[in-house]
């Protein structure tokens, strides 16, 4: 069924979507003035540098399709559960309208995109959270998408890579949002016990329920430089303890120092690092 024409069409679609992400208002704002150093970076230069500020090294958030296009081999992308979307289960006022507006603005149906593809020829399942959609917050659909990505990887005995970026819970889905923490963690535990290999990549920012569930359960845990990673948000902590937090608190480097991250990998080196990890964990290379 997977003939060349289909693959080309999918590829064009991803290219279209990632180009659109390169033109998003967020990217334009960053190009105008880098929040890290204040420098104005021409958009083309920013794009060439994978949206990392050439002046200060700040890794700016990028869209899910753009992320996938940076790590997957050409012509290997196949999206999974593309149309999965959550209804307004709690009848939360204004939620439907907000979802509709975000879908129009971002071209996404939910805050995560799942795909099957290859990295340096090795097949894998990749799921990418997108902070432009409700801050990548975890509602039912996002939790379901992550869970289905895990189950797909388990079914086809593929390695799994999840890129996290999330503000935490999807307030409008209340308790159902909370339950996604249990659902995704349970699926990953099953996957792990079945011998599945999971790489978790923290990107800026990842907090709340996503940190306290699937993002913290990787066999290998990577982080982009300078990403904010935590359970409680910095403002909540400051309010609780009544002090200013030290510089660098809850950043990737802080987590690495405290033993919660295997390696901090700059965006430009991520594809190569993932390829090497997939090679090292290839089923053919396992004994016993």
């Amino acid at each position, binding site marked *: 069924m997977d003939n060349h024409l289909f693959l080309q069409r999918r590829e064009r679609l991803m290219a279209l979507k990632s180009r659109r992400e390169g033109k998003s208002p967020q990217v334009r704002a960053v190009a105008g003035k880098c929040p890290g150093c204040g420098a104005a970076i021409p958009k083309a230069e920013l794009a060439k540098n994978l949206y990392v500020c050439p002046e200060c090294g700040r890794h700016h958030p990028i869209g899910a399709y753009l992320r996938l296009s940076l790590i997957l081999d050409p012509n290997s992308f196949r999206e999974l559960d593309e149309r*999965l979307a959550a209804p307004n289960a*709690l009848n939360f006022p204004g939620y439907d309208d907000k979802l509709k507006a975000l879908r129009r603005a971002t071209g996404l149906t939910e805050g995560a995109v799942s795909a099957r593809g290859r990295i340096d020829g090795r097949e894998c399942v990749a799921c990418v959270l997108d902070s432009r959609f409700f801050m990548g917050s975890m509602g039912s*659909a996002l939790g379901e998408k992550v869970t289905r990505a895990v189950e797909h990887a388990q079914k086809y005995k593929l390695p799994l890579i999840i890129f996290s970026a999330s503000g935490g819970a999807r307030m409008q889905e*209340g*308790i*159902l949002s909370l339950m996604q923490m249990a659902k995704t963690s*349970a699926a990953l535990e099953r996957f792990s016990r079945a011998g599945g290999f999971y790489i978790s990549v923290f990107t800026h920012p990842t907090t709340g329920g996503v940190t306290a*569930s699937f993002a913290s359960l990787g066999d290998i845990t990577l982080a982009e430089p300078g990403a904010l990673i935590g359970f409680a948000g910095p403002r909540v902590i400051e309010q*609780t303890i009544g002090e200013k937090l030290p510089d660098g608190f809850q950043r990737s480097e802080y987590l690495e120092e405290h033993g919660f991250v295997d390696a901090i990998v700059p965006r430009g080196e991520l594809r190569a690092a993932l390829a090497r990890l997939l090679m090292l964990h290839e089923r053919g290379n396992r004994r016993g």
Partner: protein
Amino acid sequence: MADRTAEQRVALARRAGRPGTADYIAHLFTDFFECRGDRLCREDPSILGGVALYYGRPVTVLGHRKGKSLEENLTCNFGMPGPEGYRKAQRLMKQAEKFRRPVITFIDTPGAYPGLEAEARGQGEAIASTLALMSALTVPAVAVVTGEGGSGGALALGVANAVLMLENAVYSVLSPEGFASILWKDSARSGEAAELMKLTAADLLELGVVDAVIPEPEEGAHTAPEAVYAAVDQALAAHLTPLLKIRDCAGHRYQKFRAMGALAASGREGL
């Protein structure tokens, strides 16, 4: 059951004098032996746990502990565990599995502690790995939400085959105050938030998040604790007994949590 607003139930759930984990352990179990410490860093008194007999059968009991006096409240950090509390819980759950004991948990916490040391020692990782471990336990697990079920810090003890909830307990993704301040930048609108959040036992039963609601005395659990112990005991025994006969407890639990939000999410597929 009494007719109350969500806001009134939030107040009752938090009320001083409401029976807590230590009370349930004292009244429902015998020969309780408290197990302390996570074997990694320290003892966290905000989670109380150990081994006890329940109708003559050894069980592992775990629950959040808020403390009864101000002094105890401070020792127990008002029931807000740090990572060490969750790692102690994991240690006890693993032992439960080793010795084939059912796990019974009591949930009553405003949430996991949002503090500097808690973050430094991996609060997120501690909760995540507890969720994963509890989800796959091969022994039966029953959770009872007795007071405040606050966020991931509550859920970490709540991945059970049966989840029961007291009539005036609440269970939510965060506090109504936090919810109002995030959504409307106004924590004073917490009453309004409580209504919207669907955090009462009746709401959660309807959403399929809890399996049964345990009725309380007319004026709340603190007014007649003895009646509450009896009601919790009865519900606990009724839900634990059939679970003892299930061969694949982990599979049963997986299906239960796998379904949370799954139907809702697929409802609009083809958008």
